[in-house]
């Protein structure tokens, strides 16, 4: 491998990048945009959700329960009702997202250890309804435990681990970094070789001494540098804008991110060589990287909750491994070496993709 040829190829790619404002904007603005979009837009928790209360018990215990809901940052008791009709009407109009109905015998049954409260929810937004239910369960169960005698009236399921403040962005932001890198890495590299093929220049490059190793390295180098720059921006935003604690080692995060970036870039390069034109390559890259990174990486949806078949599919998604590793480094302060199975899977993917790219580049007629 000759350094001069790799440098020539890399320099040429830099020029393409710098002189194509659209690509450059995509590379530089998209990560920030995605980070802020997902960091702020996707929320897996609630705050000051407006609810109503219908207290039919008119008892001290009923008022205490209302006060608990009101004091919680998750809820804001905005309406109090005297009858069911008013409550249902408010729910229907969307004035409140849910309502707590305290039955007339609440106080008596509480003393007997078997009180039940009713929670009415607006099911139009299923996710919000689920969140309201979880928070209510937690609140009511905590109150029951404090009173000692009463058994838990509702089953509560702990949802968030290693996220003491229960803020979903702490879990989301490290995942967004995976998404950003998957999209940028694969999308940009998916265009680069296809562009060469579209211009008809690959045919001419074949008659130069350029080897396929030099070709691939020269092609990917500028995008790797920009991808790592994106990582730096995303990490800085995560720590300083979103207050995500970086509990693990920064060099290890850089190392793991570099490995992941290489994997997605090779994925993009392979797509580029297979597609042969930029439009098709970019479409395949989006479908092959963005969607799996978003849906199947465990970034938003827990892999364990997916159907078994889909769970197997996630093993072929590089972002799955990187989401696990980045969350582990950010939130748990774990070393990727401890998660050697996950790191190893990413490394294996790198080797497989490297081989596939090499074979495909040979089929395209590149020497070496």
């Amino acid at each position: 491998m000759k350094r001069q040829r790799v440098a020539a190829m890399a320099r040429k790619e830099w020029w393409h990048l710098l002189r194509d404002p659209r690509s450059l904007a995509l590379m530089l603005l998209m990560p920030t945009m995605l980070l802020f979009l997902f960091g702020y837009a996707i929320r897996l928790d609630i705050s000051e959700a407006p609810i109503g209360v219908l207290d039919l018990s008119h008892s001290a215990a009923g008022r205490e329960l209302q006060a608990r809901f009101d004091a919680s940052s998750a809820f804001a008791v905005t309406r109090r009702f005297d009858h069911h009709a008013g409550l249902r009407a408010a729910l229907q109009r969307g004035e409140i997202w849910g309502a707590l109905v305290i039955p007339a015998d609440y106080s008596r049954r509480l003393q007997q250890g078997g009180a039940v409260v009713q929670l009415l929810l607006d099911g139009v937004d299923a996710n919000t309804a689920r969140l309201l239910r979880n928070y209510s369960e937690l609140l009511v169960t905590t109150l029951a435990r404090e009173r000692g005698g009463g058994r838990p009236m509702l089953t509560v399921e702990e949802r968030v681990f290693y996220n003491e403040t229960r803020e979903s962005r702490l879990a989301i932001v490290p995942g967004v970094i995976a998404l950003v890198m998957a999209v940028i890495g694969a999308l940009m590299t998916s265009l680069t070789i296809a562009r060469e093929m579209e211009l008809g220049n690959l045919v001419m490059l074949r008659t130069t001494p350029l080897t396929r190793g030099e070709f691939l390295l020269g092609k990917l180098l500028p995008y790797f540098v920009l991808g790592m720059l994106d990582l730096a921006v995303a990490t800085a935003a995560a720590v300083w804008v979103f207050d995500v604690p970086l509990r693990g080692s920064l060099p290890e995060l850089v190392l793991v991110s570099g490995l992941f970036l290489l994997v997605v870039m090779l994925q993009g390069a392979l797509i580029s060589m297979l597609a042969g034109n930029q439009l098709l390559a970019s479409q395949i890259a989006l479908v092959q990287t963005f969607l799996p990174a978003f849906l199947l990486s465990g970034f938003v949806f827990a892999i364990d909750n997916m159907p078994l078949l889909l769970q197997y599919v996630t093993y072929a998604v590089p972002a799955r491994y990187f989401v696990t590793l980045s969350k582990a480094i950010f939130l748990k302060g774990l070393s990727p070496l401890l998660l050697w199975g996950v790191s190893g899977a990413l490394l294996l993917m790198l080797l497989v993709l490297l081989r596939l790219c090499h074979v495909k580049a040979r089929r395209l007629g590149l020497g070496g």
Partner: protein
Amino acid sequence: MGHPDEPLILLSRITFDYGSGPVLEGVGIGVAAGEIYGLLGADGAGKSTLLRIAVGQLQPQAGEARVLGRPVTAPGLAPGLAYMPQGFGLYPDLSVEENLAFFADLHGLAADVAATRIRDLLQRTGMQRFGRRRAGRLSGGMMQKLALACALVSEPRAMFLDEPTTGVDPVSRRAFWQLLNGVRAEGVAILYATANLDEAERCDRVGLLEGGRIRRQGTPDQLARVEGRRLFTVTGPGVRQALAALRRLPGVEWVFPRGRAAVLWLRDGSGTEAVRHRLQRIAPALRLRETVPGLQETVLWELAQRSRDGS
């Protein structure tokens, strides 16, 4: 290494098939140093395929491609040959100098050597003033000259050009050929694929590729001569209207219009005076004069003959 007398480009009995019937059948071509060999053929005749075999990008089912005395697949041959494929688009967002520098680097030229060579190529192509202009903003003719310059940056001894002047205006084409003649004078062997008869006439030798075979090859003058046939031009008012009558004249093989005249091939031995006499009866103002045939007239006539015979 090959024999000292071996042509720099030697294609022997090349046979190639994409899987849907033979594209090339036993094609043999030799191009010596300082020679431009015109590979003349219609679209789809197999010219590009033959060139790709010649530069080692396709493997023939039979035959051998040798360049600079070695099989084209031999390692280390790249700097000695240059290939300018059809539709080669350079890098439009790179400047003229950057395009040249890129290819100089790929060929491993030292910085000072590359700078000198780029300067020289810019001068030869008349593009000194456009060194910093983006390739995408060049005219079609200049773009092709730049493509040729990129191919020349490694100072190749064998060049393969695939219809390089397609879509280029006549003035730019002329400038391109001046440049190419300079390259020939330096002793470079050039295999030039074209569908253009004008361009074929500029080559030192021409091979007519048709139906996967080289039907005839030789100098343009040799190819223009047809045994037992003579070429005449008929001029005068009303010549266009007289075409059908001309076709019925004794000894006339083929008639075709050209501008305000008609060109006709006569069998040797057909009395010229008799034809002239009959011509006067068709239209008294028409004049008949013998013409030296060019490659265009001959090739068009041969193609028409074969088309008529169904071969």
